């Protein structure tokens, strides 16, 4: 054999459709990954009418664990592409999404990024799509909490690093651009003691505090903000994480205004009902819609494009479909996925909290600014 050989991609109309899913089965994001795959299976079932076939072609799914490590994800993606997969999906972690996207472009295969929220995936290249929301959409939702931002004082509290940078930039652009003065308090992601930051926030006396914090120290952070009286002195907005994390907000939970990507009961669509019926446990969570949408996109791509990736792209660009959250639209210019977003509040105590939707924003209302396609 020759070293440059890659397994032939097929094209045979009866051959199974090969789809590779590279996501976190282990590692820190394993539970996001779990929701993603459950959603994906449910979505596949929904989109193929229970046959798991597209036309006559069976769908052959290969799942690979990346453990949240881009290097492993890249290896897996190369392996899958080498074996003739024309569609790669998954990417629970932003780092993985960012590094797999160029691989997809270099090898001209379709890549549908999963829960990874980084804005940088949008418009990164024409082969890359996303089945989840992005940070911008969170921030746009956050803006909806303060009515007219003009003259208001907004503070962003975010962790160091790209995630925090992206949120700070988005708030400056979206809320600051609308007339508010935005300042930022940043803290190391590894911080364990938050009093200095809480003091800084408090002395800034903001009208709105936008918190972008991910990771295991979040409960300690909330408790400190609560203890130092930040939560009771201003409107505090943050993203609502997966259901399992709700009790960790503790008493702080009921004092926060949440923007939400999704929670069980946020929508009442046909897809949501189907998904609820199909997933283990019957309760939807944050990232089930992402997997579900990914499956819908895969089916659409294969139906319209067969094995021709260019055709798949054309089929997906501008496509609107009914997902778990409601109407979703793939914006043709930069492949952003326009989708409804929610305002929510938590009630309850101890281990049992309930989220209630206060308001839903439509996909257009929550649309992020358009990016130029980079590649």
């Amino acid at each position, binding site marked *: 054999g*020759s*070293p440059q050989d*890659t397994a032939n991609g097929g094209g045979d109309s009866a051959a199974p459709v090969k789809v590779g899913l590279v996501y976190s*089965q*282990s590692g820190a994001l394993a539970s996001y990954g779990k929701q993603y795959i459950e959603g994906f299976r449910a979505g596949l079932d929904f989109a193929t009418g229970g046959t798991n076939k597209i036309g006559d072609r069976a769908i052959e799914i290969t799942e690979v664990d990346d453990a949240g490590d881009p290097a492993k994800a890249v290896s897996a993606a190369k392996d899958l592409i080498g074996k003739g997969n024309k569609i790669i999906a998954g990417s629970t972690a932003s780092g993985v999404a960012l*590094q797999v996207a160029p691989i997809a472009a270099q090898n001209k295969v379709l890549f549908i990024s999963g829960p990874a929220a980084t804005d940088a995936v949008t418009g990164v290249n024409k082969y890359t799509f996303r089945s989840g929301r992005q940070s911008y959409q969170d921030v746009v939702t956050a803006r909806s909490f303060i009515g007219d931002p003009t003259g208001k004082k907004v503070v962003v509290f975010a962790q*160091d*690093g790209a995630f925090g*940078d992206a949120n700070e930039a988005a708030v400056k652009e979206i809320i600051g651009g609308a007339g508010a003065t935005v300042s930022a308090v940043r803290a190391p*992601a590894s911080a364990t003691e938050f009093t200095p930051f809480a003091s800084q926030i408090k002395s800034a006396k903001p009208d709105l505090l936008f918190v972008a914090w991910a990771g295991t120290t979040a409960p300690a952070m909330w408790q400190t903000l609560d203890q130092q009286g930040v939560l009771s002195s201003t409107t505090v907005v943050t993203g609502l994480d997966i259901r399992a994390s709700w009790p960790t907000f503790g008493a702080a939970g009921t004092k926060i205004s949440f923007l939400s990507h999704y929670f069980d009961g946020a929508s009442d669509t046909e897809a949501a009902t189907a998904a609820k019926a199909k997933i283990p446990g019957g309760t939807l969570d944050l990232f089930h819609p992402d997997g579900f949408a990914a499956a819908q996109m895969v089916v659409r791509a294969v139906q319209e494009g067969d094995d021709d990736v260019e055709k798949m792209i054309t089929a997906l660009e501008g496509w609107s479909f009914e997902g778990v959250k409601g109407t979703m639209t793939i914006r043709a210019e930069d492949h952003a996925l326009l989708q409804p977003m929610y305002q929510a509040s938590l009630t309850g105590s101890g281990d049992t909290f309930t989220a209630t939707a206060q308001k839903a924003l439509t996909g257009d209302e929550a649309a992020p600014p358009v990016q130029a396609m980079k590649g």
Partner: protein
Amino acid sequence: MTEVKSPEVTAPAAAVPSEPAGWSRLRPFLPLVVLAVALILPYSTLHLPGIFEGALNSPGTLQLLAVCLVFGGLAAGYDLLFGRTGMLSFGHALYFAAGVYGTDILITRVGLPLWQAAPLAIVGGIILAGLVGAVALRTVGIAFAMVTLAFAQVGAILVARDFGGLTGGEEGLPLDVAGVPSGLVGVANTVNLYWLALAYLVVVVFVVHRVSNSPTGRVLAGVRDDERRIGVLGLDPYRFKLVAFTLAGGLAAAGGVVYCLIVGGASPHITSSELTLSLLVMVVLGGPGTRWGPVLGGILYMYLDHRLISVGSSGAIDALPAFLSRPLSQPLFVLGTVFILAVYFFPGGLASLAPRLALLRNALRLGPRRES
């Protein structure tokens, strides 16, 4: 107590029982044979089920092998510090990361072509190692380990802070392939990356062996045993350690360049102290201070690290009862268990297996002959 015990060096070959004449004549050529096999391996469509996912020449397999080879080289370079000079550095990841991020930033952010970025990144790694070493080598033993760890930690913090958006923070920085020769881009060209990794490994092994058999290498071995004595002999141990430290740093940075190309980007995983710890594990797993041990250790470690993940999600594991399948589907659980078992079952590392196998072979060979 603060002295780190340097690893014991395996006894010279005399300890190995005499081997059959034909074999001993072949033996020096064994590395060449292995190298030749490694070179032609991408032309084989052999399928080894259970060992690799696809055929030997499939991109997935070659990619995995390339990563393994880079870490084999990295471990061999680290052994120059640890096994041969007795310096326990916990910050070797820093120079590797300097190579990876240096290349990536110079290509992606600055826009340099690879042929300019790579040497700059390596020189940067060497300078960094020289500077850090100049400070850290004023301490010895555990203190030295901790100072190197501290510097590496600063590196990790800087990468995570994402100053000026240079490093991409926790999301990492995908490599902009515009600056990279097209022969190194795309799945179909994975084989070139494989050869690149192989070349890196060969260079590192050659350099390490050459250096440790040089007069300097002799001094380094002396430093490992008794640094004070080296001073009284009229040599400045500090200078020699600094040379070894800088050289090892440079080799690691070169490995970083190759790794950056193979993976197509940089991610903050590689700045963590865990990477240094795993280098240490690789070296100990293979056999510190031995010729091939660290290389084998590095290759095996990375292989397990990547493969256990797919084993963990395989059907065979799922079929087991929950109390078994749950932990076994955690790759880190399996990897950790492997380390522990390796310590007890291969003391002295993989390299100590060879003499033991030779003993076994002799026993088997002598047995029948005596009867006849």
